């Protein structure tokens, strides 16, 4: 199904959705939101694209291999941040950076980093899950 209105509107609002998703992820520690909420919003923009255009086009924007890498990297980033705390002499997943100035974006130590890792993980997972289910249905 190709609908000009749908496609044009989608094209217009997708950048804003993505920007909003990134904002929610990055500001996770000072405003409501966080990795999961922001990641879902980010993923919804890709899903909107796939619905308005075609799953094949969606896969061109977000190739399978890239999604696979992002998924593994999101998880590995989380684990690596945790392990870095071990190097610093703390327990696993200890908050090793300084807490900064509470209320500003550079605060909370490793919390923003972990939020970003979760955001990457959630976004790539939801995109991949949705694309594969959609693709399966199309072939079915």
């Amino acid at each position, binding site marked *: 199904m190709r609908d000009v209105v749908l496609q044009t509107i989608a094209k217009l609002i997708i950048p804003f959705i993505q920007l909003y998703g990134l904002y929610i992820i990055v500001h*996770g*520690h*000072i*405003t*409501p*939101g*966080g*990795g*999961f909420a922001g990641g879902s919003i980010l993923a919804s923009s890709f899903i909107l694209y796939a619905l308005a255009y075609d799953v094949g086009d969606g896969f061109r924007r977000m190739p399978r291999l890239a999604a696979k890498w992002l*998924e*593994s990297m*999101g*998880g590995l980033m*989380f*684990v690596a941040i*945790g392990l870095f705390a071990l190097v610093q002499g703390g327990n*696993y*997943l200890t*908050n090793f950076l*300084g*807490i*900064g*100035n*509470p*209320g500003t974006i550079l*605060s*909370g*130590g*490793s*919390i923003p980093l*972990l*939020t970003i*890792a*979760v955001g990457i*993980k*959630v976004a790539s*997972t939801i995109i*991949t*899950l949705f694309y*594969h*289910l959609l693709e*399966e249905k199309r072939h079915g």
Partner: protein
Amino acid sequence: MKGFRNILATLLLTVMAVLLILTVSEMPAFGEPGPAYNQVARHYLERSVQETGAVNVISAIISDYRAYDTLGEATVLFTGIAAVLAALSAHRQKRGGGDA
């Protein structure tokens, strides 16, 4: 057989519903700071800014105080995708195939 199963399930659920509703009637009152609002919750609310630097307490809990759970959460997502992809690709291009 199907009717019997439905009756059994309904009976079971009725018993369960009665038990749960009885439990609700004995629960701590809603909206009051009950047993769950103890020193742990207060610690999170009062100390999180000094201890973690995050103004959003929920963020502080999920990525600092209980970050180990969040590691599990990220893993559940990865597990989900691995399971979905395994199930989908295992059964690709085989339709109506029987158990040989």
